[in-house]
Every structure is written in C-alpha cells, then in structure tokens.
C-alpha cells in the first residue's frame, strides 16, 4: 500500500501514525509537506492528528485551505482512499469532504483518556478486519470533537451506513451527536475519526485492540 502522510505546521502525531502504517499495515509511507501541489503515486492519504496552525480560527480551518488539499480532493474524487484522525478528521470536515462539523467538547474540557468504540460499519478499508458490533478500547485526546450535523444529513448518514464508529454507551467523551466517533463519505473511500487508533497497537500502549484497523488497510 503506497501511502502519503500529510504534514502541516502544528501536527504532532505523524510519527506514531507512520509507525502504525509501516509496522501493522505494512505500508510504504512518504511524508508530504502541505505546500506541495501534487501527491506522489499514492493509494492512501493519511492526515494525522495534532494542532495545525495552533487551532486558529477553527480547528483544521486553515490547513483545509492549504495547497496540498486540492490534490487530496482530486485523489478522493478518483476513488483514492483518505484517512483523517483527530485534527485530520477536523481538516476533512472543514474541506467539506466529510459532512458535519466538530465543535468544542460539550463539557468544555480537553479530554485525554481511553474510551470504548463500537464498530458500526465493517465494510470500509479501515474496518474490514473487524465485525459490526465489535467493541475496542481506543484513546482520545482533543478539545473539539463534539460532532454536529443537521438533522436531515444525520438521517442520511445513519441510513447509508456512513457512521463507522460510535462511542459505546456511557463512553461519549465530548457530547457528539448520536455518540458519533467516526464517519465516512457516501462512497466510503474517505474516513475521519476523532480517537487515535495508532496509539492502541503495541503492548506498551496497554492494549492492542486497534491493530485490526491497520491490518484492514493491508487487506
């Protein structure tokens, strides 16, 4: 799997993500700076987490208007895979590639803890090695992960299986609508999620629950 990881000023989770992609997904990873206007030959684009542009204006808003994003949108329009985690998810919703918005956590606190995720759609490139209903531990670390979307779009997302991950009952850390933790676009080739599966793959992380997600990429 040829993979490009996008680097914006202020992102800080790229090393963990590269390790997960290389060690578990067996991907060949190239780092792409945000000022580039084209991607190398790539199957999968990954936007990792962090605080691009210091979260100025809105989380992900400024990164979403960077030169490289045009190439990423084109890649996705041609059916190429895109994964955004945490700030990467915020960037994808700011481009409009994924529906909705990620607002300030309902309790106004930065949450940094382990939550339980429930897999809702097991037919995507990031969940094919899992089974619908599976529950996995996964860390979250964010201040703005409170997913919001208008009622009509929510109904469509729910009906079309575009909700991929939900926080398990009692585990919603941010007030997200319908406990939504991760979604995909209509074609299923663009995925965004707030939790950090790249930090739940080694025994040193405490658990290895999220390895199947990265194994799905290799499948």
């Amino acid at each position: 799997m040829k993979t490009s990881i996008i680097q914006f000023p202020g992102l800080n989770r790229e090393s963990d993500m590269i390790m997960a992609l290389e060690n578990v997904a067996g991907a060949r990873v190239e780092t792409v700076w945000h000022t580039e206007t084209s991607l190398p030959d790539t199957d999968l684009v990954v936007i990792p987490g962090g605080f691009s542009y210091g979260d100025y204006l809105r989380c992900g808003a400024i990164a979403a208007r960077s030169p490289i994003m045009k190439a990423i949108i084109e890649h996705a329009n041609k059916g190429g895979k895109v994964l955004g985690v945490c700030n990467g998810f915020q960037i994808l919703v700011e481009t409009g590639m994924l529906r909705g918005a990620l607002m300030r956590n309902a309790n106004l606190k930065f949450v940094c803890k382990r939550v339980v995720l429930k897999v809702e759609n097991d037919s995507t490139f990031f969940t094919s090695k899992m089974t619908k209903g599976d529950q996995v531990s996964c860390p979250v670390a964010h201040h703005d992960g409170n997913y919001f979307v208008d009622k009509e779009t929510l109904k469509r997302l729910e009906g079309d299986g575009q909700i991929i991950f939900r926080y398990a009952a009692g585990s919603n850390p941010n007030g997200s609508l319908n406990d939504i933790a991760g979604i995909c676009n209509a074609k299923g080739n663009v995925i965004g999620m707030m939790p950090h599966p790249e930090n739940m793959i080694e025994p040193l992380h405490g658990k290895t629950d999220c390895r199947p997600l990265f194994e799905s990429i290799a499948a």
Partner: protein
Amino acid sequence: MKAMIKVTLKKGVLDPQGKAIMGSLGSLGFDGYNNIRQGKYFELDIDAASKADAQAKVKDMCEKLLANTVIENYEIEITG
C-alpha cells in the same frame, strides 16, 4: 473601505461556551439576562471599486473561510 464581519452560531446549534459564560456572570452576581451566545468578530481593510464590490468580496471570504456555514451564520457591514 472597512469591512466588519460578525460570525454567530446558527439557531439550534448548542453553545457550551456561551452557557459557561452565562454561569460565570451569574457567579459575579449579575441577573436578569438569558441566552448568551458566543460569536466571532473580524475587521479588515479592503480595496474595492464600490461598496457592493466590497460586499461581494467579503461574502466570498466568509463562505470560503471566515465562517463554517454548517454551524455558523455571518453578517457583513461595509463602511468608508
């Protein structure tokens, strides 16, 4: 010309920050207020041939960056 832009949350979108501010005002002893909504304000100098031209330019800026129209409304005022 000068443009002043107000960005506010749409009706129906929860505003936990506004709620926290409301609680804080209460703890300072204020009363008789309700429904605080937090928003953003931008000012910018703009070169334009006419007010209408400036308005159109700033509207484009709002749609493309200054506001997230999924959750926010914006109001533009041009002076000078």
